[in-house]
């Protein structure tokens, strides 16, 4: 067995048994990155030396009997998490060669638990996108390709495209991502891996470059539901440095993966049955519900009546917050500064931000600035906040009838680079099934459940009650067992 083929849980067992060392495991993943990254571009920065040093330290600790929960596990870190001493770009030119002197809470907790960081994963610039095409460091290629058209490069989804691609291509055992409107779940589905956006407040946002503060949430990618559960446990927990972080206990998520779904009530929201939805997505959805039914769960049709307003609401709230969050990138204190002799402050701002931000980021800053402007605030931002409350209420009412909700993760399989890129609104539609969980602050998990006619992975999404990731993991694991997803991407380590 190739070391990159381990699951995370499998690797932990092999390390514990001494079947493999952290150095061997890390070396194998660094080799995979070296071989595949020139093509896939999943990593912006590879920290091979630090990774090897950390792996040696891990082996030493394990030898001393001091192994920590993730001792020696090689991971990719989305380049939106600040990592002390390691360049953090948010895939934007404007951060230049920014090297944070501090570590984000989530990555600090992973390091505390013994993880080995391989490098910083590519993403859409400032996490704004569903394709990873907006990265200033170039697009990421999806390791999967169409059966009939293997030469056409597909997008990995976004914004955490590099994280999803790295895990799918076996360049890492797991990865961190962030999800503001679907940025973990959509790329997980496109790349045939598992990803979970936990409840808002479950993971600290401290040290994560902010996109939309009320929606951003960190979460893990891995190749199994259990692996995600193991990672999420390390990433979670109250952080006094984030006022929106929840002071609630962190359960043993991995144990929840083994729970039976018998007797659970699974909600099927009728509003998620979209006109023109591909038949294979519809079929996959039905299949997933049948699997759960076979395991003893009950399926219940529910209504989430404000679903149709979710995308427009999201595309007001998220840009509004982003327009303010990104104001700090002004060329004054760190990052890129573009100026010419004689420039006044304002001209320096204009040059710096014109050169530093890509088109999609500029578009969202402008949308956000517009919806917050005097005379428009009530009509857009305030209205959106009211609709957001109604969307959350839809879910509250649903939880009276059901324990979890299952939907498709995305309205299609991965699309090709160049498709859907002319019209930003078409691109925004990718988030149609995922944004509601962000707006309501609920946990959502994407799990691969099948392939489309072209052999591309399709995912299902499980949404749960706030802080009930355990049920989400139980349902996700049940789908995973039934789907028995064994397909492999064409581009992968050891292939």
């Amino acid at each position: 067995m190739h070391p990159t083929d381990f699951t995370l849980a499998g690797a932990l067992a092999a390390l514990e048994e001494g079947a493999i060392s952290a150095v061997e495991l890390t070396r194998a993943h660094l080799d995979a990155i070296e071989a595949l990254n020139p093509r896939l571009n999943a990593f912006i920065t590879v920290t091979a030396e630090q990774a090897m040093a950390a792996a040696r330290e891990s082996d030493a600790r394990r030898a001393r009997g001091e192994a920590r929960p993730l001792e020696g596990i090689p991971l990719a870190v989305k380049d939106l998490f600040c990592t002390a001493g390691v360049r953090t770009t948010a895939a934007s030119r404007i951060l230049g060669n920014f090297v944070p002197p501090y570590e984000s809470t989530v990555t600090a907790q992973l390091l505390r638990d013994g993880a080995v960081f391989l490098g910083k994963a590519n993403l859409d610039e400032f996490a704004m996108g569903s394709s990873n095409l907006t990265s200033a460091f170039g697009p990421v290629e999806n390791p999967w390709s169409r059966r009939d058209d293997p030469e056409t490069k597909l997008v990995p989804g976004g914004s955490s495209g590099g994280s999803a691609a790295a895990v799918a291509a076996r360049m890492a055992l797991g990865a961190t991502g962030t999800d503001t409107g679907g940025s973990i779940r959509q790329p997980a589905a496109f790349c045939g891996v598992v990803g979970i956006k936990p409840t808002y407040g479950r993971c600290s946002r401290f040290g994560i470059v902010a996109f939309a503060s009320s929606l951003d949430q960190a979460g893990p990618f891995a190749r199994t539901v259990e692996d995600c559960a193991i990672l999420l446990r390390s990433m979670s927990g109250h952080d006094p440095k984030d006022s929106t972080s929840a002071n609630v206990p962190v359960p043993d998520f991995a144990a929840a993966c083994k729970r039976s779904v018998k007797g659970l009530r699974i909600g099927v929201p009728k509003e998620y049955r979209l006109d023109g939805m591909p038949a294979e997505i519809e079929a996959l959805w039905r299949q997933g519900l049948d699997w759960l039914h076979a395991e003893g769960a009950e399926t219940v049709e529910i209504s989430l009546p404000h679903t149709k307003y979710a995308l427009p609401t999201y595309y007001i709230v998220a840009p509004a917050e982003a327009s303010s969050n990104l104001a700090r990138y002004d060329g004054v204190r760190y990052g890129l500064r573009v100026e010419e002799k004689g420039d006044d402050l304002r001209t320096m701002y204009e040059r710096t931000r014109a050169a530093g931000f890509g088109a999609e980021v500029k578009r969202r800053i402008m949308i956000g600035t517009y919806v917050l402007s005097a005379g428009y605030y009530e009509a857009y931002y305030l209205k959106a906040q009211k609709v957001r409350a109604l969307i959350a209420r839809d879910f509250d009412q649903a939880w009276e009838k059901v324990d979890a909700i299952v939907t498709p993760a995305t309205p299609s399989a991965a699309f090709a680079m160049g498709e859907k890129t002319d019209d930003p609104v078409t691109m925004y539609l990718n988030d149609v099934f995922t944004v509601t969980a962000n707006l309501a602050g609920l946990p959502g998990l994407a799990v691969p459940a099948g392939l489309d006619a072209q052999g591309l992975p399709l995912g299902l999404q499980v949404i749960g009650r706030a802080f009930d990731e355990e049920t989400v993991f139980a349902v996700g694991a049940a789908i995973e067992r039934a789907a028995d997803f064994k397909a492999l991407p064409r581009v992968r380590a050891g292939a």
Partner: protein
Amino acid sequence: MSATYTLEGRTGPWELVIGLEVHAQVVSNAKLFSGAATAFGAEPNTQVSFIDAGFPGMLPVINRECVAQAIRTGLGLNAQINLWSRFDRKNYFYADLPQGYQISQYAHPIVGKGAVEITLSDGTTKTIGITRLHLEQDAGKSLHDQHPTKTFVDLNRSGIALMEIVSEPDMRSPEEAGAYLAKLRQIMRYLGTCDGNMEEGSLRADVNVSVRRPGEGYRTRCEVKNINSIRFVMQAIEAEARRQIAVWEEGGEVEQETRLFDTGRGVTRSMRSKEEAHDYRYFPDPDLPPLVLDEAWVEELRRGLPELPDARKARYMRDFGLPAYDASVLVAEKETAAYYEEVARGRDPKLAANWVMGDLFAALNRTKRTIEDPPVSARDLGALLDLMKDGTLSGKLAKEVFEAMVETGKPPGAIVEERGLRQVTDTGAIEAAVSKVLAANADKVAEYKAGKDKLFGFFVGQVMKAMQGKANPALVNETLKRALG
């Protein structure tokens, strides 16, 4: 009720309408949303956390002590404490605003309506309404004079907690505005919520001024920004009112705008017009949940409030029998009041007041020292009063001893001992001196006995002189009267 203050224009009298927005720096060891220190005068950029500098991924966390200080201030202003308040972002770009927004309570302030009473020079009082008090972050400081072409930025102030206190447009004269600002400063210094140091910028005022004909409604107002002394506030109001009167009287229209006060020339000048006003795009800060206060905590803070100046003044008048003026002077600064109370404790409060307001204040002026660092401690001044009471010192001698205390810093007992200033109450010594004086001035004794009563003072003076001023005056009087029959 005093007559309405007016300024005389070419076409008749004009009334003034004035409201103040006061920015008071909260006394706290750390900033509003970060743990960085707040000491004044530190080297530039040495009290800056990554949060204050707007680094990527940094998040604000509210400082509980700053919230407590705002609540205490609200309680001191007899104001409504809002148990639910919220922080908004005020978005604008400037080099000394690292986040690109200021976190401020725009829509939902922590403190609502309140009132303070001011006393004017003619002794009348007036109530000034408080509209609101909210918490916000200060910005950094741009230094334009450090380099020929560049501006330097000092972020030490960035993120420091400010209370913005907004008044109703209730003031009608520069004096009222000055008295209001002085009163706010006094209350906050009593509470220990703002040190009130205007030179260091701990207290700054924006002044809204408009003028009107007597009996009219409000006309357009202008805001004069960032004034850092009570005197300048009063000057700026008059200058701005005169400017507006001239505009109206020339048939023009006062435009709503933001102005600055040129302290050198004593005029206001335009900073930006209404059209140039920023669109701050306020919205709730998504990094901060609403600030929800526990009512029990507010009550705990209320119980912990110190006695405030108005209550203390009333107590001085009621319990000590001080006149209103003396009581006002003594409570003006809490340090003065503390000094006075230590002197007065267990002694004659009126005598204590006279000494503090008379000899001590004079000594402070003369030595250019402050009540926090006085040349004579309250304890020593009290001891001096005790020496008068027990007859050791006469009033005259006491003044001499006090001057020696100012000079040497020694306690009164030591000075009395060293200089032998103890008053002579030995009747034998006094009688001897009286006999000597009367014998040496037989002619004057004859004149006195013939009815020239005024000469009694002369004899007293001669006896005191003979005894180097140390004789107990009452005993001298008594002995002389007896001797002169």
